[in-house]
């Protein structure tokens, strides 16, 4: 049996294709429903709330305000301390409801009633008296500090840090040329197809929370910390999750208000976000980089300096603190650039809060460095990839410590790039595009390279249970929610135990079942959760050998295992897997379980992606083709890995061309998909995805590096470059709108 490396079909498809999937809103639990009264102002003090009319509405049980619920919490969500240094931040922990609304949509009151329709009716009948306050919507305005989002902080700047390495001054002094660069991403909305939701039950001092989340154990910890309930009395259950992309590793105020209400009422309360609510509960990206590059005439990049400004929205979310701290570290990418200064500033604005979104900080860093490389190539009249080759870290320098101290574990970027050029037909495609352009077609080809950081320790949990019939349950701290990593983990375990994969069931996402866990994000699941499961498999196998040895009257060292058979060669005897499993549960010390909490570090996948675009006379860009060549370490399931490239690339197309959450004083303009353009099947390119035959494995037992985010990390840079190739003009931000492209065509 050899499952690793094969396109094994997803093990748990059945419920999804038959409609038996159970997402948060599908749970058949008797409960009250919640809806929220939201601020129509970007910044306003709540003077009073009159709920008397609302309470008269048929079926309404309660209306709570900040005064009712906030005293129930002793703390609130702040930055994710596992990864974010809280001491570097100025922030105010989020509360269930607010007395000072800081963005349009900030929840002011919660209405609870018997059904979704009546609570929505009652929301309209809650009369709130607001005192409007000066607001800061745009980053530039917030930086001026005239209107403060959080008065108590005394500033809108939540974070400010200089990331400095080498000697930037001297690098710029010795430059042949200094080239200005700019790169920015406007605001996106991760927008999983399933809007977020929560069901909270309070009973006898125990809290059960069904929650559309990527991080159930962190949620348990958060609720315990906020409400002062022992975590042992809290159970968080993650049902099927309909997409997350980072946005569901984030606690919204509404979650706290639902939990608080359920405790206050002693009833089960549920909230499923409408699409309008989902669109404001997590925004993403929104950052600018302005700086300059010092280069030598031969293309050697000597140094980079610049200012990175990151919009936080109105509150510091659990995950947004990652971006301003990680983007600078990743700006050098795969290139040997030692002299860098990035002044990173993160700013509060009166806008919906920003969270991480697929790639979080690597897409931003990659867009910046790849914009830099492409801009320099243009200015020096060099081939894009030739310039990159010139600056790449060499294989004999691996593991390579980048100027900010990140240690790139393994890889040979240069040889890989040469292979990639062949595989993606780099030169032929460029030549073909040029020929098409001479025929009058606006075709463009763009490539971009990425080096990303994934895996993200610090640890993950894996447990193997072999039951009395010899069937295997894998309990993982990872939280697969569409990626198919449950299947991939089963492949790893099946190979390790040399059993049929059909005997394996992978379970996750329930804090009462899974002893501990971090969750799925950061392309970490196969690497760290898969390796933990693999390690636990080995331990269980050792236990089985011990049992087999007793059955065979052998010493444990004399027992060999292969293909469901434990052999005692010397005596020519053997026992089968199932017999051992059965025997294990009839002995004095029964039980074939093993659990592992595996520590792990980051790892660095890399790749070259190419986009081919066509532009029509109105400036509308279509990505016709998308090609990817990646080194993601060992590939456990090529079909699943490829699927991640497809999906990430589609979101890359969205970021590069379509998606933009615009905001004005009245709030976010996107209240539905009519104003936020998530791409459809018509906008989808043809994808070709290759993984190198000679991957550099990570240090994880699985040898994997991760692929979940790769295409969204690099896609926007490749697509923007393709637009430049087609138009001969420069574009420094995402999305590139038809209007901007059109302007480039006529000027």
């Amino acid at each position, binding site marked *: 049996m050899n499952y690793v490396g094969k*396109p094994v*079909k*997803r093990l748990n*498809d*059945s*419920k*999804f*294709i*038959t*409609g*038996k*999937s*159970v*997402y948060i*809103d*599908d749970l*058949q639990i008797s409960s009250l429903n919640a809806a929220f009264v939201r601020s129509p102002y970007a910044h306003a003090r709540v003077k009073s709330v009159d709920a008397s009319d609302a309470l008269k509405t*048929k079926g309404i049980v309660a209306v709570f305000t900040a005064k009712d619920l906030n005293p129930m919490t002793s703390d609130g969500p702040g930055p994710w301390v596992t990864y974010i240094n809280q001491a570097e931040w100025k922030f105010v922990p989020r509360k269930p409801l607010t007395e000072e609304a800081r963005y349009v949509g900030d929840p002011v009151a919660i209405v609870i009633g018997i059904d*979704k*329709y009546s609570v929505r009716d009652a929301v309209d009948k809650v009369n709130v008296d607001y005192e409007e306050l000066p607001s800061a919507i745009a980053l530039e305005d917030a930086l001026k500090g005239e209107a403060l989002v959080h008065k108590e902080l005394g500033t809108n700047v939540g974070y400010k840090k200089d990331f400095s390495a080498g000697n930037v001054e001297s690098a710029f002094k010795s430059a042949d040329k200094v080239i200005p660069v700019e790169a920015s991403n406007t605001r996106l909305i991760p*927008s*999983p*197809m*399933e*809007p977020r939701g929560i069901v909270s039950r309070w009973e006898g001092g125990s809290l059960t929370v069904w929650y559309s989340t990527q991080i159930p154990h962190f949620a348990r910890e958060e609720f315990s910390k906020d409400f002062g309930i022992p975590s042992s009395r809290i159970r968080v259950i993650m049902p*099927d*999750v*309909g*997409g*997350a*992309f980072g946005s569901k590793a984030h606690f919204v105020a509404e979650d706290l208000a639902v939990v608080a209400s359920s405790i206050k009422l002693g009833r089960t309360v549920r909230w499923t976000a*409408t*699409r*309008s609510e989902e669109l404001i509960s997590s925004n993403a990206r929104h950052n600018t980089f302005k700086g300059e590059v010092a280069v030598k005439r031969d293309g050697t990049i000597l140094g980079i300096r610049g200012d990175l400004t990151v919009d936080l929205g109105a509150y510091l979310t659990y995950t947004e603190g990652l971006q301003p701290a990680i983007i600078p570290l990743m700006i050098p990418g795969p290139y040997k650039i030692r002299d860098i200064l990035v002044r990173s500033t993160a700013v509060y604005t009166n806008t919906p809060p920003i969270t991480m979104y697929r790639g979080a900080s690597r897409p931003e860093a990659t867009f910046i460095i790849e914009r830099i490389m492409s801009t320099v190539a243009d200015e020096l009249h060099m081939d894009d990839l030739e310039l990159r080759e010139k600056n790449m870290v060499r294989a004999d320098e691996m593991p390579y410590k980048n100027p900010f101290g990140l240690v790139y574990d393994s890889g040979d970027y240069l040889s890989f790039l040469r292979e990639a050029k062949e595989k993606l037909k780099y030169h032929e495609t460029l030549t073909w595009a040029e020929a098409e352009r001479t025929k009058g077609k606006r075709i463009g080809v763009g490539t971009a390279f990425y080096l990303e950081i994934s895996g993200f320790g610090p640890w993950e949990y894996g447990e193997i249970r072999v039951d009395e019939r010899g069937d295997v349950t894998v309990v993982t701290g990872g939280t697969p*929610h*569409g*990626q*198919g990593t449950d299947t991939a983990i089963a492949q790893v375990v099946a190979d390790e135990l040399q059993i049929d994969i059909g005997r394996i069931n992978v379970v996750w996402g329930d804090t009462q079942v899974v002893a501990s866990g971090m969750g799925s994000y950061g392309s970490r699941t196969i690497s760290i959760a898969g390796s933990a499961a693999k390690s636990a498999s080995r331990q269980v196998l050792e236990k089985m050998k011990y049992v087999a040895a007793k059955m065979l009257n052998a010493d444990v060292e004399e027992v060999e295992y292969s293909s469901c058979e434990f052999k005692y060669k010397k005596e020519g005897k053997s026992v089968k897997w199932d017999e051992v499993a059965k025997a294990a549960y009839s002995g004095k010390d029964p039980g074939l379980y093993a659990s592992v909490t595996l520590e792990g570090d980051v790892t660095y996948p890399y790749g070259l992606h190419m986009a081919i675009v066509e532009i029509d006379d109105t400036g509308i860009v279509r990505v016709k083709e998308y090609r990817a060549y990646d080194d993601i370490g060992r590939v456990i399931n090529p*079909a*699943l890995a*490829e*699927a991640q490239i*497809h*999906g*990430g*690339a*589609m*979101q890359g197309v969205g970021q590069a061309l379509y998606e933009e959450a615009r905001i004005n004083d009245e709030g976010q303009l996107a209240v*539905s*998909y*009519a104003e936020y353009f*998530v791409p*459809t*099947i*018509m906008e*989808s390119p*043809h*994808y070709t995805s290759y993984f190198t035959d000679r991957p550099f494995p990570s240090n994880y037992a699985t040898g994997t590096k991760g692929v979940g985010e790769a295409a969204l990390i690099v896609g926007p840079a490749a697509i923007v470059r393709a637009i430049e190739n087609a138009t001969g003009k420069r574009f420094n931000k995402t999305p590139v709108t038809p209007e901007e492209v059109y302007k480039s065509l006529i000027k």
Partner: protein
Amino acid sequence: MVKPGEKVKIKVKVNGVQYEGEVPPRKLLVHFLRDDLGLTGTKVGCDTTTCGACTVILNGKSVKSCTLLAVQADGGEILTIEGLGNGKLHRIQEAFSNNFALQCGFCTPGMIMQTYYLLKEKGSEISEEEIRDGLHGNICRCTGYQNIIKAVEEASKVRS
């Protein structure tokens, strides 16, 4: 006439089963299916007729059940994802699984129902262009769509 706040009796046949229910006129068909009949396979994704997660077949036509009132289905016949394939997997369902045409699965029921309608209308000679034109009212955020196209092509070729 049903006054505001009153309920109206409706009869619908869903997946071959006759149901009777009382609904307020404003109740959306998707909520009737999900909350009253417990058929939660049909999902609510965007709320505003864009994403197609709520697609069902009503009287032989694919419709977005979040943009129809339950009362409008009175006397009608509905097929939802739960009713596809008569207890076995329908060839479209198999093709979606074979081709890795789903990830988080949330759009999948709507996508499969729209595919069912499309193949019913177009038969086995369906082109990629027709698949794209026929499915652009169903948004998937995970797959990038290529595997969905492959699945529909495969399903179109398999005789049921």
